[in-house]
């Protein structure tokens, strides 16, 4: 029996291979999807895990706000559970090619580390100090190649050589870093605030001042665990918590270590400054004294000279007096001489008279004569005496004149002395002034230094305690989203195959029913021969199970090889992980197979059981053809009358074969649903960025300020912004992440509270509107406006109250005025007045939302760089770059859509092919009859295809409904807590799904057209039914 059973099954399969292959195909599709999508999530995790384990990616990274010193490192090492630790460095830097500056994250490379080892892609790892390795796309971006050089700049005012020993590095190769498994590169402290590329340089380049920037840690006992598993996360988290505890202890110690040294330095500086100041004073005082002394000397010299001059003048006066006397004596002398001359003349005249009168006078004469001669003698004597006098006078005169000349000399030299002295005096005055100025300057400088020191002391006094950031792998850019994505694929992989299994069951049911009906006589014969029902059914069970097992095995094999490979390849645009492992997952395989078996086995049993219930004699009689029946529509004459003859026939036929109707409708609806889901998912995800950043948020740049930023910092940045030619408008606001919950507590979500300074111009920055009705709301004192996803998560509606808590602050309750459309993150908008009212203080603004002309990335980057240089500015972000990231994701969605189209096509193909074939086989007599009646080929085809077309339309309609639910399911599954995807599907997607469904149906009809032509009328009509 066994042999003959299998022989029988084998022949049956060969004869009805189309049906057999149909079941096989649909089961293999179902199993392929189930195992393939299920395995993809697995494989991505396995591949990721293996890669990260191999590269020894740290489990925990500790970053200190002031770096980590040796004591910190020791403290971390001492934490239980820390298997190994490696302190390292990283820094932000910039490099520039052809005027384009990009932000680099520079990591230390040390082959000894044994952690975070970059995977070489091309070329060699760094060896010499001046070597570096970069990521492949850095080379592509700048069109560089291995061997070219990278020159780093600090991106700030300081010289990068304060931090690195070399400025220029030669690219020795390209690598993949396990720190970056996605395209995300994280934040940067410079430039526009985002990292563009990473690179590794030998660790020795980092100038160590006893402080590392970070420490990499491997946790004990987790290397064997799958790193995306909860077990791994729990273990790592436990150790991370311990490290955080250690960090809190170290915070105080480190603060003291740091401030102690700083305070000591400060005091030393202050002392040195004071000494300096004293020394300056002393030196300037000394100089001043010297100058004063010099001035004294000069003054006394001057006095002396002045005294001598007076003397000289007095002597001169005396001399002049004497000279005047001499001169007047000389004049008197000259007068006396003149008198003598006149007396002598008179005497001579008297003598001559006497002589002339001699005769006359005799004695008298002599007497007279002697008197006259005596007179003459006296005059001569007198003259002599006068000349003596004169001589003496002249001598005096000469002497006096000489004395005067000497005096003049003395006067000249005295005058010379005063000139010199005056010069000297002037010089000293100048020097004194200079000295004063110099002293003032030196003192001012010292005062400035003092001020700086005071500021430094204040800063030091105000210094935040150093803090550790203990980051697990999810802190790495892209790591968390990778894990999320794998989960999502797995989740979706649970749903889609259900459609295929359902259809497999249906296909199997119709195939088996037909087969059992065809073999009715045989079953009757076997039964009459005494075979038990079980044995008879076995053949059909085997017939159903065989394609299921073969299809399931093949489907699993293909699915697990194909899907992970394809999907991971597609994701590799987003994720930088090596090519995937696609091992067979036997568990999944078995699950898929069991589902397939359940579907087809059940269908086969159901199909047989009906026949077996009949007794052998009735089985041996041909089954009466299914009687025609009037259907409901015929009793509505109004409708029935409208149909022409052929339409009536079609309606009757459709309703006659209800099983087939349902199966086709379900199969086709599955096809349409898959298509609609594919397109819908794309619409939902692609659409939200356009809506979010086009219709809801209108600002395209935001400038954020550090907590420490003061009002004038914001004003200054705002002025710079407004001065930019790119600037259109701006809005100052406070942005703060707070804990949001229902008014009575319960679940807590992080929401960003936005408090605009003014509620006037808000419509230029935000549109508060309902997602469905687009009704707009105004932000006012009536309450806050919250975003939709938050309202869903918290289950609060307008009119309810909600609780907010800012950090450790008080819980405040606010009324919710409206719920607005938003897709990313959670926001709570409130007016400044509301804030003031509930928090009891005015908001401290820390953000400028602005609308700028962001056409040119070059210009916006430059603006960002300028702003980031400003004090207090902590970040500048552009919406455009966020949208850019999204377009990558969307290109991946296209791939998902293609996979869905392909599988929808396969589904439609199998269902319609199977159905049309069964339809034709079952109705071959009917078809032969109309052929005999002389229906043309096209009419015969139309006879069948009209029904197919109607079923396809019905199926497509049902598919749209099913697709909408499936789409919603996928969207809700794929969504994360902080995201909301669009719920709408575009009209074009509905149309496209239906059009493609019709196209698939048409293709199947074309494929079966030949079969209709080949119907052998003679054969078909020869025998009884």
């Amino acid at each position: 029996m066994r042999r003959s059973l299998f022989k029988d099954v084998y022949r049956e399969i060969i004869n009805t291979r189309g049906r057999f292959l149909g079941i096989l195909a649909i089961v293999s599709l179902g199993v392929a999807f189930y195992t393939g999508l299920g395995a993809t999530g697995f494989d991505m995790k396995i591949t990721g895990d293996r890669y990260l384990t191999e590269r020894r990616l740290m489990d925990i990274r500790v970053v200190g706000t002031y770096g980590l010193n040796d004591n910190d490192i020791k403290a971390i090492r001492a934490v239980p559970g820390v298997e190994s630790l490696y302190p390292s460095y990283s820094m932000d830097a910039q490099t520039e090619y052809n005027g384009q500056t990009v932000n680099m994250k520079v990591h230390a490379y040390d082959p000894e580390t044994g952690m975070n080892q970059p995977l070489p892609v091309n070329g060699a790892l760094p060896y010499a100090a001046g070597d570096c390795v970069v990521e492949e796309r850095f080379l592509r971006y700048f069109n560089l190649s291995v061997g070219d050089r990278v020159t780093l700049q600090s991106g700030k005012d300081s010289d990068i050589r304060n931090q690195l020993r070399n400025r220029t590095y030669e690219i020795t190769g390209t690598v993949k870093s396990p720190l970056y498994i996605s395209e995300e590169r994280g934040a940067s402290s410079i430039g526009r605030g985002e990292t563009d590329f990473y690179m590794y340089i030998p660790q020795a380049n980092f100038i160590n001042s006893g402080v590392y920037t970070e420490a990499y840690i491997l946790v004990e006992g987790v290397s064997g665990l799958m790193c995306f598993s909860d077990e791994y996360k729990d273990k790592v988290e436990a150790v991370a918590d311990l490290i955080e505890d250690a960090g809190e202890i170290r915070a105080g110690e480190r603060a003291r270590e740091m401030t102690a040294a700083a305070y000591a330095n400060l005091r030393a500086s202050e002392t040195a400054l004071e000494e300096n100041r004293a020394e300056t004073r002393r030196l300037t005082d000394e100089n001043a004294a010297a100058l004063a002394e010099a001035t004294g000397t000069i003054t006394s010299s001057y006095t002396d000279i002045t005294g001598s001059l007076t003397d000289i003048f007095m002597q001169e006066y005396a001399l002049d007096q004497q000279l005047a006397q001499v001169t007047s004596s000389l004049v008197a002398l000259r007068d006396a001489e003149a008198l003598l001359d006149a007396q002598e003349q008179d005497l001579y005249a008297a003598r001559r008279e006497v002589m002339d009168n001699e005769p006359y006078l005799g004695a008298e004469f002599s007497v007279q004569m002697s008197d006259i001669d005596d007179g003459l003698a006296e005059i001569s004597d007198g003259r002599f005496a006068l000349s003596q006098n004169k001589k003496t006078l002249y001598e005096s005169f000469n002497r006096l004149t000489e004395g005067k000349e000497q005096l003049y000399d003395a006067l000249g030299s005295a005058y010379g002395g005063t000139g010199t002295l005056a010069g000297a005096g002037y010089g000293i005055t100048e020097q004194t002034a200079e000295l004063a100025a110099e002293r003032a300057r030196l003192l001012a400088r010292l005062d400035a230094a003092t001020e700086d020191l005071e500021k430094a002391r204040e800063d030091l006094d105000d210094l935040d305690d150093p803090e550790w950031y203990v980051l697990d792998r999810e802190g790495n850019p892209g790591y968390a989203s990778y894990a999320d994505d794998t989960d999502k694929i797995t989740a979706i992989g649970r749903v889609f195959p259900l459609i295929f299994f359902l259809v497999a069951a249906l296909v199997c049911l119709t195939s088996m029913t037909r087969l059992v009906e065809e073999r009715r006589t045989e079953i009757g014969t076997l039964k009459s021969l005494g075979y038990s029902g079980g044995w008879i059914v076995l053949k059909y069970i085997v017939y159903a199970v065989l394609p299921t097992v073969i299809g399931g095995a093949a489907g699993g094999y293909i699915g697990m090889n194909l899907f992970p490979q394809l999907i991971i390849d597609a994701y590799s645009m987003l994720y930088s992980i090596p090519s995937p492992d696609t091992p067979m997952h036997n568990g999944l395989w078995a699950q898929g197979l069991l589902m397939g078996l359940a579907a087809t086995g059940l269908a086969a049993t159901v199909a047989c059981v009906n026949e077996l219930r009949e007794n052998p004699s009735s089985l041996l009689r041909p089954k009466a053809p299914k009687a025609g029946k009037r259907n409901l529509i015929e009793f509505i004459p109004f409708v029935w009358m409208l149909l022409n003859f052929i339409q009536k026939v079609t309606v009757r036929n459709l309703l006659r074969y209800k099983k087939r109707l349902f199966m086709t409708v379900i199969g086709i609806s599955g096809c349409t649903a898959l298509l609609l889901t594919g397109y819908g998912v794309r619409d939902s995800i692609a659409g939200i960025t356009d809506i979010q950043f086009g219709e809801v948020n209108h600002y395209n740049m935001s400038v954020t300020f550090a907590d420490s930023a003061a009002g004038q910092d914001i004003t200054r940045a705002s002025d710079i912004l407004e001065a930019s030619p790119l600037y259109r408008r701006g809005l100052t606001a406070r942005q703060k992440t707070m804990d949001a919950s229902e008014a009575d507590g319960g679940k807590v979500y992080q929401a960003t509270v936005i408090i605009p300074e003014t509620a006037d111009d808000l419509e230029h920055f935000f549109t508060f509107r309902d997602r469905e009705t687009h009704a707009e709301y105004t932000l006012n004192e009536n309450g806050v406006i919250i975003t939709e996803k938050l309202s869903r998560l918290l289950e609060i509606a307008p009119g309810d109250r909600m609780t907010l808590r800012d950090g450790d602050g008080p819980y405040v309750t606010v009324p919710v005025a409206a719920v607005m459309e938003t897709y990313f993150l959670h926001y709570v908008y409130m007016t400044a007045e509301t804030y003031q009212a509930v928090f009891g203080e005015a908001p401290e603004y820390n953000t400028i939302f602005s609308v700028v002309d962001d056409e040119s990335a070059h210009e916006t980057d430059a603006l960002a760089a300028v702003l980031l240089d400003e004090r207090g500015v902590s970040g500048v972000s552009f919406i455009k770059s966020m949208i850019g990231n999204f377009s990558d994701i969307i290109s991946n969605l296209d791939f998902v859509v293609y996979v869905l189209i392909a599988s929808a096509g396969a589904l439609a193909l199998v269902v319609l092919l199977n159905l049309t074939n069964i339809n034709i086989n079952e109705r071959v007599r009917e078809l032969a009859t109309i052929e005999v009646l002389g229906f043309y080929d096209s009419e015969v085809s139309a006879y069948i295809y009209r029904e197919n077309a109607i079923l396809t339309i019905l199926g497509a309609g049902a598919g749209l409904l099913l697709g909408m639910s499936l789409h919603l399911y996928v969207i809700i599954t794929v969504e994360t807590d902080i995201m909301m995807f669009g719920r709408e599907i575009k009209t074009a997607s509905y149309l496209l799904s239906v059009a493609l469904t019709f196209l698939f149906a048409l293709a199947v009809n074309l494929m079966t057209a030949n079969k209709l032509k080949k119907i052998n009328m003679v054969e078909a009509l020869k025998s009884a039914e």
Partner: protein
Amino acid sequence: MPYISLTDVRKTYRMGEVDVKALDGAEFFIEKGEFAIIAGPSGAGKSTVLNILGGMDTCDSGEITVDGSAVSKYSRRQLIAYRRHDIGFVFQFYNLMQNLTALENVELASQICKNPLNPRAVMADVGLAERMNNFPAQLSGGEQQRVSIARALAKNPKLLLCDEPTGALDYVTGKGILKLLQDTCREKKMTVVVITHNAAIAPMADRIIRFRNGRVSEMSVNAEPLPVERIEW
């Protein structure tokens, strides 16, 4: 030239490894308006010749003319048109559309040809005026065969071809069907060809063609055909 003539018609079927000569040079003719019976044992080629004559099958060689047209040279499409407009078929197992009422089965045929007869009138002619709206499953075998004949007649064909029309019917019912066919031939001047393995009914025909081994073994014309009622078998 006779209305229907077959000249040296041959047809070989390939059954696996064996070639079966179904027709091996069959030759006969039938005049217009005759009631012809083709008789012979099973496997003699009766059905094959009828199928070929009705345009349901083609011959390998030979010539078939109907009303002056060479049917043997028809293309596939011409054959369909031939079946559509010129031929009415009646089968042993009726081959009614189960899903259509009796009248609708007739309409199915009348819908597609050039000069159809009124289906209701034809139904009345075959004696089914009362059963027009019944489905085949609700009719007896004889009634179903009458519907089948009505369907063939409604097309107003040149030829009515019947393949063992009474094969599945009891004696009385079969007789009724044969009478209907004979009356149709007489009253409507319809050319009727009936295949039977029952030689006993031969006397009712105008022309009797006997088949044996794919050939016509005898063709005779009956000058005095008997009405069916008078034949017993």
